C-alpha cells in the first residue's frame, strides 16, 4: 500500500512539473462534497453547491487573489480559495443562477419545478440563507428528466422551466407570471438562456431549439435537431454572448458538434466530431460553453475527467474528427486511483480573462486555471 502511495506521489510530482509549463496559473481546492454547479457571483467569487439526495452545502468561494495579480504575482501570497459565505439546502442543487445586480441566487433541486431563492451574505453575515421561492408550473416529473433550467437577465425576473411547455418568465418577488411562450410539445430542456434583453433560447435534450421573443405573442421559432440517423442521442446547446456573439453550438452525446448562426439556426455553418469518449449521459452531465473572450472557442466537459477546449473557427462544413486546442487533465491526474474514474461535473469560463476557467469534478475537486497559449510560445 505504501508503494502504491509513492507511485501516486510520483504521478502528482510529474503533473506538477508539467503544469508549470502548461499553465500560467493553476489553483486547486477540495470540497467536502462534489458540486454540479459553478456560477459567477462577481469577478472574483463563485457559488457552488452539493447534489446529494438530502442536505447539502451551498457555498460562495472567493478565488485565490494571486490569480488576479497579473503584473505583480510575486506580491500576492494569497493562493488559496476562501469560503466567504455558506448555507445549507434541503435537497440537491441541480441548477444555480445568479440574479444580476443582486446578492441573490436561484436554485432548482431537480425533484420539482419549483425554485429556491437565496440571499448571499448581507449585513455582515457570512450566511447564505433561503429568502424565497418561485413556483413552477408543472409538478409532475420523472427521474429520467433533468431538473429546471434557469436564466436571469435583470434583477427582478427569472426565466425557468424543465420542459419546453412549462417555460415561464416570473417576477422574482411577487411570483407573478409575466410571460409564457406558446409551445405545446413537451421536450425536456437541457438549456435556457437569454441572447438579448427580450429574446431567449430554449435548448431541448432532443436537439430542438426554440427561439422566443418575449415582446411578441407569436409562437417561438422551432429549429429541429441536426439529423442523426439511427442514433438516440442527447443534445446540449449554448449561444455565445461575448466575442463570438451570434453563434450557437449544439453538441450531442455521441460527440458531434454543430455550429449555427442565431439568425439561421436551420443551417449548419460548420461541424465536427469531437475527440470524446461517448458514454451513457444524463442531461446534467455535459456542459458546452462559448468562451466570452476567446473568438470561436468552446469548452466541453462531462464525457471524462478532462475539460477540452476546441477552436471552432477552423472547422469545415464536412463532418471531420478534430483535436482539442487544449485539455485540462488536472482532475483526472490528481484523483486517487482507488476512487475510480473521475468525471467533470461542471465548468465555467471567466467572464473577461480569455483563458481562465473553473472546473469541478465528481471527486469534489475544484480547479481554476489559466492555460498557456502554446502557439504563442513556439520559437
Amino acid at each position, binding site marked *: 500500500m505504501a508503494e502504491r502511495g509513492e507511485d501516486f506521489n510520483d504521478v502528482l510530482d510529474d503533473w506538477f512539473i508539467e503544469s508549470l509549463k502548461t499553465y500560467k496559473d493553476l489553483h486547486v481546492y477540495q470540497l467536502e462534497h462534489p458540486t454540479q454547479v459553478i456560477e459567477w457571483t462577481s469577478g472574483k467569487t463563485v457559488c457552488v453547491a452539493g447534489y446529494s439526495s438530502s442536505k447539502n452545502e451551498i457555498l460562495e468561494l472567493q478565488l485565490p487573489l494571486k490569480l488576479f495579480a497579473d503584473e505583480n*504575482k*510575486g506580491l500576492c501570497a494569497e493562493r488559496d480559495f476562501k469560503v466567504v459565505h455558506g448555507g445549507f439546502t434541503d435537497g440537491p442543487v441541480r441548477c444555480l443562477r445568479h440574479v444580476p445586480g443582486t446578492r441573490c441566487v436561484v436554485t432548482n433541486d431537480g425533484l420539482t419545478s419549483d425554485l429556491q431563492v437565496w440571499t448571499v451574505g448581507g449585513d455582515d453575515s457570512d450566511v447564505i440563507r433561503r429568502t424565497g421561492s418561485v413556483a413552477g408550473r408543472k409538478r409532475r416529473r420523472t427521474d429520467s428528466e433533468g431538473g429546471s433550467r434557469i436564466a436571469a437577465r435583470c434583477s427582478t425576473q427569472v426565466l425557468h422551466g424543465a420542459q419546453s411547455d412549462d417555460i415561464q418568465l416570473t417576477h422574482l418577488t411577487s411570483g407573478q407570471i409575466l410571460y409564457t411562450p406558446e409551445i405545446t410539445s413537451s421536450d425536456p430542456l437541457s438549456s435556457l438562456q437569454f441572447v438579448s434583453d427580450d429574446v431567449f433560447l430554449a435548448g431541448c435534450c432532443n436537439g430542438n431549439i426554440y427561439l422566443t421573443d418575449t415582446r411578441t405573442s407569436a409562437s417561438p421559432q422551432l429549429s429541429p435537431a441536426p439529423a442523426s440517423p439511427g442514433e438516440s442521442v442527447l443534445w446540449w446547446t449554448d449561444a455565445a454572448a461575448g466575442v463570438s456573439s451570434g453563434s450557437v453550438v449544439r453538441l450531442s452525446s455521441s460527440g458531434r458538434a454543430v455550429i449555427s448562426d442565431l439568425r439561421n439556426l436551420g443551417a449548419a455553418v460548420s461541424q465536427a466530431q469531437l475527440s470524446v469518449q461517448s458514454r451513457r449521459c444524463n442531461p446534467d452531465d455535459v456542459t458546452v460553453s462559448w468562451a466570452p473572450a476567446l473568438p470561436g472557442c468552446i469548452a466541453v466537459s462531462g464525457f471524462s475527467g478532462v475539460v477540452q477546449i476546441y477552436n471552432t473557427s477552423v472547422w469545415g462544413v464536412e463532418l471531420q474528427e478534430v483535436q482539442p486546442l487544449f485539455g485540462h487533465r488536472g482532475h483526472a491526474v490528481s484523483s486517487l486511483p482507488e476512487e475510480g474514474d473521475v468525471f467533470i461535473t461542471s465548468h465555467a469560463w471567466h467572464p473577461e480573462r480569455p483563458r481562465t476557467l473553473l472546473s469541478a469534478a465528481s471527486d469534489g475537486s475544484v480547479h481554476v486555471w489559466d492555460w498557456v497559449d502554446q502557439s504563442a*510560445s513556439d520559437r
Partner: protein
Amino acid sequence: MTCIKLIFSRRPRLKVGRLLGAALTSRRCLHDEQVTRESSALPIIHHSKYVCDLPLNHRFPMGKFPRVLHFLIKDQVITEKQVWVPEIASKELLSCVHTEEYLNNFINGKINEQEQRRTGFPWSEGIVRRCRYETGGTVLAAEVALQRGLACSTAGGTHHAFPSFGSGFCLLNDLAVAAKYLMGISSHKRKILIVDLDVHQGDGTAFIFKEEPSVFTFSVHCGKNFPLRKQQSDLDISVEDGMEDKEYLSTVETHLPLLLETFRPDLVLYDAGVDPHWEDELGRLRLTDQGLYQRDLYVMKTVVSRGVPIAAVIGGGYSRDIDRLALRHSILHRAATQVWRDCGM
C-alpha cells in the same frame, strides 16, 4: 589578478582536479605576495555561461544568475575583482555521481521526451553547457572555501538530480558532485555536511548519499511542496505551510549546532534557497527578506566561528519578476560579506 585566478580562468581544457593541485602549489608560493585587498575579499564564483536561452515564457527564471552579480556590484557589496570563474565540469568529474549512460545521453541529447518532461527543460546544447558550468562553479566554491574559509556561487543548488535522471529543473546534482569530489578517495575521507534550506526537499542529494557515512544530508523543507515523493536525508525537517521568520530560524537553530558538534564536518555545503520567502510563487512558507538574511547570517557565522569552511550556493527561487528575485538571492552574498567582515577573514 592573482596567480590563482589566472589558472582557473585561462586554461579551458584543464580539469578541475588538476586545478586543485595547481592551486595549492600556487597558494604556497603566493602566500607572502598576497597583499592586494581585493584578492583577500569574499570569493564570489560566477560564470557568464551560467545562463542559456530558453523558450519564450519558460517558467525557470534563467535570467536571475547574471542579475545577482549585477546587483552585488551595483550596490557595491562586492567588486569584480572578487569574482572567480569556474571551469566547465568534465564528464570524468560528473561521473563520480552520475551514471555513464545518463551522462552520455545527457551530453549527446538522447534524453527521451518523458524524461525531459520531468526535468521541466527541453533538451538543448545550451542547457547541457550551463548545467556543467554551474556544477563546476559549486565545486570551485567548495575548493576555495577550503582555502579561504568561505565562498559563494551566484548559482547552484540543483538538488533534485539523481544519478541517472534529472527532475524539477535539476539536470546534474552540483552539491553531490562537489561533496563526492572533495570527500576524496583516501582511507581518511573528508566529512561533508550538506545543509539544504531550499523549500523543496533535497531528494536527489539524500538518495545519492544515503549509504555514505562521510556525507551528512540535512534538509529543512515544506512538506506539501514538490517533491511529494520524499527521499530520506540523514536529517529531514518537514515544516508546515505558512511558517514565518521566527519559527523557521528557531528550527534551524535547534539542529545546526548539534549537527556540527556530533558530525564534526570538515566542510559544509550550504544551499541557501530563497523559495521559503512568502513571495515565492511555488514555495508555501512565509519568510521575509529579513528572515532570509538572519538565516544565512546564522548558518554561515555558526559554521565559520567553529573553524569549519563553508561554500554556499543560491538554491531555488521562483518569480516572474527576475530583478526582484535576483535581489532576494543576493541576500546570501550580503550576509556572507557581513560574516567575512565580522569574523576577520
